């Protein structure tokens, strides 16, 4: 029998992998992938708990909202990454260390 604790541990593991990707990678796009992994871990929790709310289906509805938010965030973040690359010729966040003027 698969209980909620199974899902919690799995999403915790995914969250920590995302955390590691964000901290260790020197590349804005890979950091974005790490953020997506963490968001997916949260969505997995929403869906797993949403099973116990049939009438309001709150978990699944907010999982949908979270997916849409992730899509919007990715679009803006990729546009910013392209702009940063155009200006600095690198997307290593450690080497982007000066302002516009």
């Amino acid at each position: 029998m698969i209980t909620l604790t199974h899902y919690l541990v799995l999403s915790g593991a995914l969250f920590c992998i995302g955390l590691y990707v964000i901290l260790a990678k020197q590349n804005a796009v890979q950091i974005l992938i790490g953020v997506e992994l963490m968001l997916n871990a949260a969505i997995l929790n929403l869906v797993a708990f949403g099973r116990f709310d049939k009438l309001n289906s709150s978990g699944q509805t907010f999982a949908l909202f979270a997916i849409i938010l992730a899509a919007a965030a990715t679009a803006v973040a990729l546009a910013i990454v392209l702009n940063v690359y155009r200006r600095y010729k690198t997307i290593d966040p450690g080497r982007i260390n000066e302002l516009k003027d």
Partner: protein
Amino acid sequence: MILITVMFYLMAAIALGSALYVAASKNLVRSVFMFFVTLFALAGLYVLCLADFVAITQVVVYVGGILVLILFAFMLSGRELLSGLQQQTNRLIAINKLPALMLAVLFFIVLVNIFLKANIDNASWISQSIAQKNVITVTDVTVNGIGVNLMTNYLLPFEAISILLLMALVGAAHLSRKEGEAA
């Protein structure tokens, strides 16, 4: 019941393995494609949670939208981006990444401790909803409920998120213009 258990562990193993490959791989394009696999395995896990509509949305939006967007960003930003990435990742890898690894592992240990102590399967609201038969069963159709709730209970968050999505898309289109056209 045994099949569900086997499928859960299979999907969990695929998701965790491909996520670890994303974390470990030095090749950027390969890690993006392994992220595809993670997202598909997560969609399978959503189906096991009886959330079929969320699973389909995951496949359509994440795999069809976000990952294609990331790949587009690679292809549009040219070859220098990819070659510049690969030369950064060869020296002192272990020492560079030790703090991140330690933080992630320790955080995972803390999280697992909390999950095991919380004993969430016997939480009051969950046993209450089991007693009231408010649990989604295998034969239920969930899409109707989501549609009705989206237009009644959650109308305000729905509208707010629509406006946010519109703002984000306009902002992204504005940001990705060429510099010369701005004046």
